[in-house]
């Protein structure tokens, strides 16, 4: 569906553009820190990414949109279930973060979006996300809808060539996007950032509340 070298190059270019944009954004946002008086530990992306929006299928087989998660702080992460190392590591870390947030975590949802819809059915996604955290939701859908969401947040994924056994890996952006209860993009976490920073910022965001 997606491979080829030019595609990978385009993804890389897009990725570097994203990094550049984030670096510029971080510089500009120094002012924002002073404005709202909040000391974010993750990368503040407020005003630099569009609101949470998508048309996908949840792990109960139900059609859902970004609007369905208004009122919750959303942690958006792209991955796939045939990923035995990094995706489980990230989801296990997010589970620890949720545990550390205590009752506040009920105001948050982990949205795990499949970049491998050919293999990730809602049933598989359901079993997978529930093995990590009760507040995790697995989202899959048509390749087009998934690509639309991925592009919306300047994320990228590439299906790698099939191995001899017919299986394949999917390379994907490792960032976690955090949205507030109004669906506004607020923070971006990379795998290098600590659980302490995640807990700090989510605690702050969840404590701020939102107009319901």
């Amino acid at each position, binding site marked *: 569906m997606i491979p080829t070298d030019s595609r990978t190059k385009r993804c890389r270019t897009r990725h570097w553009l994203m990094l550049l944009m984030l670096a510029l954004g971080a510089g500009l946002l120094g002012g924002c820190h002073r404005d709202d008086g909040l000391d974010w530990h993750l990368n503040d992306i407020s005003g630099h990414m569009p609101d949470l929006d998508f048309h996908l299928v949840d792990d109960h087989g139900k059609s859902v949109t970004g609007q369905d998660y208004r009122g919750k702080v959303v942690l958006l992460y792209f991955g796939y279930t045939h990923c*035995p190392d990094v995706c489980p590591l990230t989801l296990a870390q997010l589970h620890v973060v949720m545990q550390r947030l205590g009752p506040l975590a009920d105001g948050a949802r982990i949205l795990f979006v499949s970049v491998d819809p050919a293999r990730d059915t809602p049933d598989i996604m359901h079993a997978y996300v529930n093995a990590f955290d009760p507040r995790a939701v697995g989202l899959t859908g048509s390749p087009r809808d998934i690509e639309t969401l991925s592009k919306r947040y300047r994320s990228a994924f590439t299906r790698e060539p099939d191995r001899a056994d017919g299986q394949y890996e999917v390379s994907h952006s*490792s960032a976690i996007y955090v949205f507030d209860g109004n669906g506004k993009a607020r923070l971006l976490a990379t795998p290098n950032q600590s659980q302490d920073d995640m807990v700090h910022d989510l605690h702050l965001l969840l404590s701020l509340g939102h107009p319901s």
Partner: protein
Amino acid sequence: MNFRLVRALPLFLAGMASLTAHATEAAHVQARDAWIRVLPGDLPAGGYVVLENISDQPINVRAVQSARYGSAMLHESSNAGGVSRMSMVDSLAIPAHAKVALSPGGYHLMLMSPTAPVKVGDKIKVSFTFDDGSTLDADFTAQPANAAGAGG
């Protein structure tokens, strides 16, 4: 027993000992904190372990296998440029008197097609083959999907 034979005997015994070691267990590598992250159904699972080379010679892991999985491979995850990738590793070097950790987000075993469902708490034998022909069997403990490490 003449002098020549007495002198040769220890060499002969040493040779036998090393042959025995090569045919069975590698005495020069130790495994600890071995665990598997169990995922639902027959999804591929990650295997993690710390391998310590206690000998004076470098050694390379060349192959892994387990009767419990149809296929086992040595893989490495990377995160260059913010993109998570996984690649196969043909050979993993363990320098003399050094440890190499197979840990989440780095080197790991990719364990595919379980021959029978793997349940949390199961002990799974995984066999490592080194470039000198020796092998090492290690018991991996099956941990839940959201485990943080060997301790669960």
